């Protein structure tokens, strides 16, 4: 028995490692994806006033704090038992769309494009955003432009680019400035142009990856996402739907308040990341995926014309329920287009400049649950409070957690496909890391590291001796 350890997995948010077990003939017998950091937010928020929760929990993440702000604010809205003013609802979704644009752009352009456009087997020294900028400067620039556009929406509508202060229990603490609206509208067309061109480019290179498409988590599982009453994609509101790999809807119309009836959380002995599963099917049979691919699979349509046309093409090319997690990249690009179209619709809504953006109330319910689609999938915040509003208990189900079982299964599939006879080659191991990156996992990105540990793979014999070692 031998094992290969990839520690850390690079170009993801947070810290993780992968262990690959080999038998004596060098064939893969099993794999494990471990999350090696613990956060503990659920515990240390106990005793804090509920209205502090959006600000506290946003600090979980430096890349997608908006998702936490929104899920948390929605849980607080429920504790206050208020319906937020219509303008606040529009502004929150606007900010959310800005977040999708910037987060998806980071994932595609700066983290995954080096693999996709420079090649999985290309020189690892140059297989990063700097190498991409050198070879395709216009593409790196487009990524920067989309990131900037999304972040400017967040900053303009909510106050700050990272950890903004504008999203509060009861709505927003400021209305939308008409100048900000006009500025966003002015820059919307170039952003859409970038999104369209990038989609065309990506579609043109897809045929280069038949092995990756076939083995990057190409599997049967359920797909979960939020949809509206017509089955259309929803990012901010909506009800939970599970669809299986045959296209059948397994469960539909599930409100946030019932998440515990449908989602169980298994605790793993070798990872700090829990493994949620669809409760009625049990663990681990209740495996499901969330995030861009799952959302497109769960929804009937996208509700905006250009994104809808792209969805139709996506399904014509890969089926009504797309199985391979490689296509998270494709789905992510379609969602950027969707978010940009939604931004236009939201900014054109007559009520979006209404100054009434906040409902005021105290504690009217002793628990609240907030659910929204983060860029990486469904995010749930569940709080219980005392009569004074102090947090007694909190449970957060982070988007990446839902994908834990699927990531594990995907890592095993890729490892078995590309690792043969105990051979350890960099490009092969890069594919193992890349399948994790396809999910764009957000294990933690709020910490600031002073240094960077390179990719480190160790091949260990049954007696503990190191057979081989590769440092990237």
């Amino acid at each position, binding site marked *: 028995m031998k094992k290969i350890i990839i520690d850390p997995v690079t170009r993801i948010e947070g810290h993780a490692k992968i262990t690959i077990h080999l038998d004596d003939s060098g064939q893969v017998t099993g794999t494990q994806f471990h999350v090696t950091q613990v956060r503990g937010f659920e515990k240390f928020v106990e005793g804090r006033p509920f209205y502090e929760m959006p600000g506290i929990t946003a600090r979980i993440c430096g890349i997608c704090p908006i998702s936490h702000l929104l899920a948390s604010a929605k849980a607080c809205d429920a504790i206050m038992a208020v319906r937020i003013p219509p303008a606040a609802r529009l502004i929150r979704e606007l900010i959310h769309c800005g977040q999708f644009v910037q987060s998806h752009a980071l994932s595609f352009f700066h983290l995954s494009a080096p693999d996709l456009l420079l090649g999985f087997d290309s020189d690892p020294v140059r297989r990063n955003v700097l190498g991409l900028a050198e070879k395709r*400067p216009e593409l790196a620039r487009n990524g920067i432009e989309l990131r900037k556009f999304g*972040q400017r929406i967040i900053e303009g509508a909510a106050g700050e680019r990272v950890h903004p202060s504008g999203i509060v229990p009861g709505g927003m603490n400021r209305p939308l400035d008409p100048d900000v609206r006009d500025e966003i509208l002015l820059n919307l067309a170039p952003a859409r142009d970038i999104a369209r061109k990038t989609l065309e480019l990506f579609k043109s290179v897809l045929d280069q990856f038949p092995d990756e498409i076939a083995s990057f988590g190409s599997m049967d599982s359920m797909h979960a996402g939020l949809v509206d009453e017509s089955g259309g994609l929803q990012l901010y509101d909506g009800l939970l739907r599970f669809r299986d790999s045959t296209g059948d809807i397994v469960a539909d119309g599930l409100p946030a308040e019932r998440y515990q009836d449908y989602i169980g959380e298994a605790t793993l002995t070798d990872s700090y990341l829990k493994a949620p599963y669809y409760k009625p099917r049990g663990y681990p049979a209740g495996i499901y995926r969330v995030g861009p691919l799952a959302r497109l699979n769960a929804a009937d349509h996208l509700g905006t014309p250009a994104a809808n046309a792209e969805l139709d093409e996506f399904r014509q090319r890969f089926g009504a329920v797309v199985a391979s997690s490689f296509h998270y990249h494709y789905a992510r690009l379609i969602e950027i287009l969707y978010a940009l179209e939604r931004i236009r619709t939201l900014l054109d809504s007559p009520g979006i400049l209404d100054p009434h953006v906040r409902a005021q109330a105290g504690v009217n319910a002793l628990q609240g649950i907030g659910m929204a689609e983060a860029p990486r999938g469904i995010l749930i915040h569940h709080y219980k409070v005392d009569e004074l509003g102090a947090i007694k208990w909190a449970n957060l189900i982070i988007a990446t957690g839902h994908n834990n079982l699927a990531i594990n299964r995907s890592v095993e599939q890729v490892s078995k496909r590309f690792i043969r006879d105990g051979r350890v080659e960099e490009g092969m191991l890069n594919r193992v890391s890349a399948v994790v990156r396809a999910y764009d996992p957000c294990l933690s990105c*709020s910490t600031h590291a002073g240094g960077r540990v390179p990719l480190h793979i160790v091949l260990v014999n049954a007696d503990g001796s190191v057979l081989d070692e590769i440092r990237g």
Partner: protein
Amino acid sequence: MKSAADGPLFIGYGNALLGDDGAGAYVAASLRRRGLNAIAVPQLTPELADLLCRVEVAIFIDANAALRPGEMSITPLREAGHSLFEHEISPAGLLRLVREVYHRAPDSLLINLGARSCELGAPLSTAIRRAAREAVNFCVQFRGL
């Protein structure tokens, strides 16, 4: 969209919830209050390239646990060769990105502030506060040059 003002761009970076790691952001906030073109960010990300391509001089401010607590060092920055990039990037890597994408990059300095502790918690240590004040004075004087 917002554009950088004339004069050097000061970028303080670090996590304000990890003790002394927040010193860069602390300095940037102080500079901003004094009217300087300064931004505080948790980490360096690619879109900062868009700001950096518009200035002649950039000064990065960061905490550094390798220095003695309270010590300040100022070093010229050179553009990096190829380096690993995840969700954050080094100042030198960022300068390289600016060069590749925009064909120009600002002259840059890196101010490192010796950190005592970067554990969970908001307060800065007395030692790094002293260094941070020194850094603020340096930046203000530098702006006036």
